[in-house]
């Protein structure tokens, strides 16, 4: 017991009891509330789920598909997280981007991705063999991070896939470590080959 405050153990117990009592769920992603113009099609949802899973696949922990990241990305795009609904700079608008701009100058990333993937395989991306699909996505990824890519739309989508995965329970507490109540600060801990980073190391998330 520290002073007259709650002890760490009592506190953690009370907090988890509170969560139980309130029946707090892990937040599901609700796309129902979106305006019609922002509501993704079933095809876009399927594509985004598969694309997310190609970026972060199942390994010894489940990947982005299992973590529901596709729908999170679509929600995040619709609500403009991480600047996704900002108007594009004029020099970022190429001929392949222009058809997918909204009236306000922002890009409908979901439509852009859908059309770009289809074009890359010369047809219906979802129905192509897995290797062909992955190859098309890898080509886009390489272009997006190439020396002349500039503000490539794939960077926005990929960034939101990472956000969605590492802030999910699977990504944030199974792939990475999560310690909500460290209780102490160790300033120098040896790194081992299997050391996992903490998803709630907030400075590293904010400034890293």
């Amino acid at each position, binding site marked *: 017991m520290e002073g007259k405050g709650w002890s760490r153990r009592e506190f953690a117990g009370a907090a988890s009891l509170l969560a139980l009592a309130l029946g707090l769920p892990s937040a599901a992603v609700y796309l129902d509330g979106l305006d019609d113009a922002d509501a993704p099609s079933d095809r876009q949802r399927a594509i985004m789920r598969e694309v997310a899973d190609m970026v972060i696949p199942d390994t010894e922990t489940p990947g982005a598909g299992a973590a529901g990241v596709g729908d999170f990305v679509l929600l995040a795009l619709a609500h403009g997280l991480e600047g996704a609904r900002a108007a594009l700079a004029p020099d970022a608008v190429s001929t392949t981007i222009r058809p997918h701009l909204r009236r306000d100058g922002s890009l409908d990333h979901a439509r852009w991705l859908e059309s770009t993937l289809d074009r890359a395989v010369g047809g219906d991306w979802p129905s192509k063999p897995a290797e062909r699909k992955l190859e098309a996505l890898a080509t886009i*990824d390489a272009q997006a991070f190439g020396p002349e890519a500039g503000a490539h739309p794939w960077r926005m989508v990929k960034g939101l896939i990472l956000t969605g995965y590492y802030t999910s329970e699977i990504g944030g507490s199974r792939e990475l470590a999560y310690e909500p109540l460290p209780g102490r600060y160790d300033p120098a801990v040896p790194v081992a080959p299997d050391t996992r980073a903490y998803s709630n190391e907030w400075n590293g998330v904010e400034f890293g």
Partner: protein
Amino acid sequence: MAQDFDFDAIVVGSGITGGWSAKQLTEAGLKVLVLERGPDIPHQSGYKTEMKAPWDMPFRGEGDEELYEREYAVQRLNRHFTEFTQDHFVNDKDNPYQTGEGSDFNWFRSYNLGGRSLTWGRQSYRWSDYDFDANRRDGHGTDWPIRYADIAPWYDLVEEFVGISGSMEGLPQLPDGKFQPPMALNAVEQAVRERIMGRWPERRLMVGRTANLTEAKEGRAKCQYRSICQRGCSFGAYFSTQSSTLPAARATGNLTLVTDAVVEKVDYDPATKRVTGVRWIDKAAGRRRSATARMVFLNAGSFNSVHLMLNSASEVMPTGLANSSGVLGTHIMDHPSTLSVAALMPGFEAVTTFGNRPTGTVIARYRNLDEMDGEGHTRGYSYQGGALQSAWVRGKREPGLGADYKNSLRGPGPWRVVLVAFADCMPRASNRITLDPRKVDADGIPQLKIDFAFGAEEHAALAQAKADAAEMMTHAGGQVLMGFDRPGTGGGAIHEMGGARMGHDPATSVLNKWSQAHDVPNLFVTDGAQMSSSACQNPSLTYMALTARACDHAVGLLREGVI
């Protein structure tokens, strides 16, 4: 006491200084009314998101940017504004303000019980005579009527109650205090400290002095190293009104606290030349109320205390309460600040940390102390920052897909050191707040208008800070990634202060050395509005010390029957 009056004292605001006024005045036996404009946020039970993980939140902690653009256009620019903390910040749409032509100012606010004590950065530093003597020495602004010796015992008092962890460094420009044991530097910070000091002994990198407990205090547990303070801390491990001053004030039985009470006017009696009480809008009931008191403490936050004085103009004080000098609202300041350097620091790949330390590091001011070595500026800058490891977000900058890419983001990333400079802001008459004659808020109260710009001194200081930072990082073995030398938008440091400055002369200042209005002896302004210069370190501890000092003086005057 309190005969013929409803209360002995009315305190406007429940933030860092309002909480202190409430505690000091009630503990002295006074009957005190505290008015808070925002809603109640009770300690512990009011911290709704404290225990939640990102996956418990609809927008994973980042928040609904669509909502933020619409209703939190300014607050969302605050780095502590997240989905977890959004209810601890003001709704900009409902609480508008104006900026003058050519001005840009981000006014970050928390209208709730505890004010910004709930969301503050907790960095707590004493000022020194380099700061209190600054205006006299270089001729900017007006001379402070106090020096370090006047405030030192009050720093002692507030530090011991607040609970500040920090290291003793023996630096005259950043005096040591009554500290709890410091939090530790990590391995990289320790090495960088030694490397910098090896070449520049006067440049001292130390762990931030922070109002987070490293030892339990009465009713408060020590820090749990979560570093999510702005959500509210049920352990009471950082100083806030809720965790600290409010329980103390309540324990006296002398406190009346009213929330949802927007004070619109302080009443002034020209016959007695005293303020007699305040009027407020009861937001819950939708009606106007008032109360009387022997004295009034304004602790509404720098700009809102000044706003209230301007809005309390009367026939005999047509330009604002206690404004015979005409300087009310002028000489506002906020620290110019920027990221001076971000550098990779190789060689520490074998080490990481455990736990989230809720403070960074500081390099105390070293320019323009006994030798005037500033290039184009006469005051100082200091750095806050620290060494950290890139998290999974580094993957956003890297090409790759699949298992190898996923695995590459699993461990802690490369070490980086960041240094953010905070420089002195010069007090200038042209930087000022006024009432906008054309714009009113939903209650019909004139909106605040802010005219603000940084000048040549601030730009020169940040330019030198950038050059120094790159030099220090390179010397320490780092690889400089980036650095900036332009100040961000005013208000960004969330250290807005001034507007009712302290001074010797009633003709050129609003307050005397006791934070007491020259014109009105029973009116005290003890928040940031009283500041005559800005120094380059965080100001909250100084506000607290000046508040405790003013309370002691006011109680003495009351007992002597002077007010």
